[in-house]
């Protein structure tokens, strides 16, 4: 019995080792559905084998820290600029070359340690038959004034994009005003969700009427006939914040050439077309064809307030959210 077990374990062990050997290893905080098609296309074109470990940004960052110098990862593909900024701050990322960083039309971080790959925007989702757009404010800062929505507003304080949005508000308006806004919102008794899809489901089911979310979630549900619309706040308003996803090369990488090649490929027109085409995200280079539900790229980019995305301070935001009892 024991010998059989030993045998089984050895075989499995061997299989595991065989798996661990590959030429490019990505740690992706973005989910498989959004990454795999691109990885496959790159593999076919370049002949370079790519392995991906999926997880959430925070989990992967924690794993990278535990692994330290022994990490097998070559690239970190983050779902938020907050996580990428954190990775840069921990000193995990290499500085990228200018040939790479000159490609995106914007959002390149000052540290030059990661490149933006796609952009999403914050919007206010609302129920079509219950809410008139005329009643919705131009600025997210005026949202607490809508007392008619008391108890019928949804938000996601634990979700990274929401936290980036609060970080931006702190950067633009300061700590005191942000806290005031959060408390005024709290007075309207908003419902807190941990996932955006379940929040949009709640709009459909009549649990809430409006919700602070990311633009693509609304579009994915609109596609299948949900009675939900997106309200865009005015240009430059913090409620229209751009959310940048991106990737950087890890200092532990032993395949820097292949990793650079992969990033360059991700910034090519062909790869960039994937973002608007399949998942309703905005590309970061010009020339991609956008579906009618998306706004023209220049208009969308102009919508977001201008700020240095690396200055979004996540830790201070988490502290504030804990202070007002939202986390």
């Amino acid at each position, binding site marked *: 019995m024991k010998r059989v*077990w030993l045998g089984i*374990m050895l075989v*499995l*062990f061997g*299989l*595991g*080792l065989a*798996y*661990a050997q*590959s030429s490019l*290893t990505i740690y992706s905080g973005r*989910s*498989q*559905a*959004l990454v795999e*098609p691109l990885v496959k296309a790159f593999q076919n074109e370049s002949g370079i084998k790519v*392995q*991906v*470990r*999926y*997880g*959430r940004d*925070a*989990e992967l*960052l*924690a*794993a990278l*820290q*535990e*692994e*330290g110098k*022994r990490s*097998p990862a070559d690239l970190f593909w983050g779902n938020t600029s907050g996580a990428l900024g*954190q990775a840069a701050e921990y000193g995990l990322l290499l500085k990228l070359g200018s040939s790479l960083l000159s490609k995106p039309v914007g959002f390149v971080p000052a540290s030059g340690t990661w490149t933006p790959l796609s952009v999403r925007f914050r919007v206010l989702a609302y129920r079509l038959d219950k809410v008139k757009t005329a009643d919705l404010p131009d600025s997210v800062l005026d949202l607490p004034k809508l007392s008619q929505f008391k108890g019928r507003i949804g938000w996601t304080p*634990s979700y*990274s994009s929401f*936290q980036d949005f609060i970080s931006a508000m702190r950067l633009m308006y300061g700590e005191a005003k942000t806290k005031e806004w959060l408390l005024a919102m709290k007075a309207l008794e908003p419902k*807190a*969700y*941990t*996932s*955006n*899809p*379940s929040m949009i*489901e709640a709009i*459909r*089911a*009549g*649990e809430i009427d409006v919700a602070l979310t990311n633009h693509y979630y609304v579009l*994915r*549900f609109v596609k*299948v006939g*949900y*009675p939900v619309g997106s309200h865009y706040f005015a240009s430059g308003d913090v409620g229209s914040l751009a959310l940048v996803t991106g990737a950087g090369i890890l200092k532990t990488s032993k395949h820097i050439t292949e990793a650079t090649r992969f990033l360059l490929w991700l910034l090519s027109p062909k790869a960039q077309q994937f973002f608007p085409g399949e*998942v309703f995200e905005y590309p970061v280079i010009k020339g991609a064809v956008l579906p009618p539900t998306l706004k023209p790229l220049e208009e969308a980019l102009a919508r977001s307030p201008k700020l240095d995305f690396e200055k979004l301070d*996540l830790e201070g935001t*988490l502290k504030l959210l*804990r202070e007002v*009892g939202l*986390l």
Partner: protein
Amino acid sequence: MVYRIANRKAPAALVATALGVGSLVLAPLAYLLLRALQAEPAQLGSILFRAQNLELFLNTLWLVAGVVVFTTLLALPLAWLTTRSNLRGKRLFTLLFALPVVVPGYVGAYALLASTGPGGLLEALTQVAWPRPSGYWGSLFALTLFTYPYLFLNLRTAFLGLDPSLEESARSLGVGGLEAFGKVVLPQLRPALYAGWLLVGLHALGDFGVVSLMRYPTFSYAVYLQYSASFDRIYAAWLALMLLSFTVGLLYLESRFLRGLSLSRVARGASRKQALIPLGAWRPWAYLFAAVVVMLSLVGPVLSILFWTRQFPFDSSFALLEGLYNSARASLPAALLATLLALPVAYLGVRYPGPFSRMVERTAYLGFATPPLAFALALIFFSLRGVPALYQTLALLVLAYALHFLAEAIGPVRAALYQTPPKLEEAARSLGSGALEAFLRASFPLIRRGVLASVALVFLSCLKELPLTFLLSPVGYNTLATRVWGYTSEAMFAEAAPFALLIVLLSGLFMGMLLAQDKS
């Protein structure tokens, strides 16, 4: 019939084995302490003395208590019906009652939310919008539906191993049926009840998927939020330790109840088959009860998943086979390994009760209650420092599964051991067998049912596991569960549906096979 066994000295090899298993499970705890001790005192104060902690604590307590009560209300009658009554189609029903455990909480709760309210699946089917579950009752409802099988499987094993002569003696002395159940049968079910309650309680305690979707803040919900948001391993370690102290409380309660039980048969001769109790006029009600449970816990979620495929057009080709293969080749060895590791621990606990054996057994439950994310980080930490070659191999994932789910394997094995008389082994020893041989030849055949239940429970848990899989599997290793999570979190339900269905199907087949074997 409950009586005590005198304390005897356990063989050294057994003690060493059990100790080895225990210390493996404890490794993550050591890691948590290591990280926790890196905290600064000021930071620590703000973690430990938050005003919300009390509210979270009470919420958690209510939820655990509620889930224990309601799962018992489902599992006890269902286990009785499928073992002791003359209900028809018992094997099918057993399978159906065991299956909801395969519905991952995050899928089941989402299915409940997506099918209720205006515009939901249930409205499309019945023309009436069904109320949406949420908060305490929503969490209680969903957790009860998806965890009661743990208790059911434990109780079923216990019912099947009951010695009918005890109940018959009671009846022959003029005790009524219901009274005999309360006075004779129920006390014999206690080890199974406690083990099942503990599992169900720990599930409720550690659940994040259901309570977060139902928006009911419990302790582990808060732990998870901090963990996933803060990128901070020290802070997370403290919160995990706080959650573990809650577990220690539960374990203490269970050990108080279980102390010094012995429920084995003492009569000579083989145990007889139990006579079935006719349901009579109750039969239609029994079927109705069974049907309602199956509808809510199994048919509902599966229909909901099917509805996704219809509602959301699917356009991508999916790697079903790859996911199936990966899920099976990690979960199956893990289930066998966990059961193998559980045997010495459970054996020590049952045959040589005492503070030491109790402690070793409790350790397994601590491993189960350690937040999986912390468990995974600990294994990364230790494997990279100890055996770097093991890191990111399937072997490490299998080991992680087995250690984390060890507690699930202990329950059924332990319940079965309680019902196996030590005399048989003693007889084998007196005939010249060694300790191990005596166990394998005299006791093992009698606890086979328990062993199978253990393998099944761990296998099913591994199939839907996420955090350990994400962090410890070989890079590029996709299981059915990671696919489901990856798609649902992006609102791509049509793509997620086939993988979710396959989890249910695979588990169903596995359970069916086990239960078919179980018959003989």
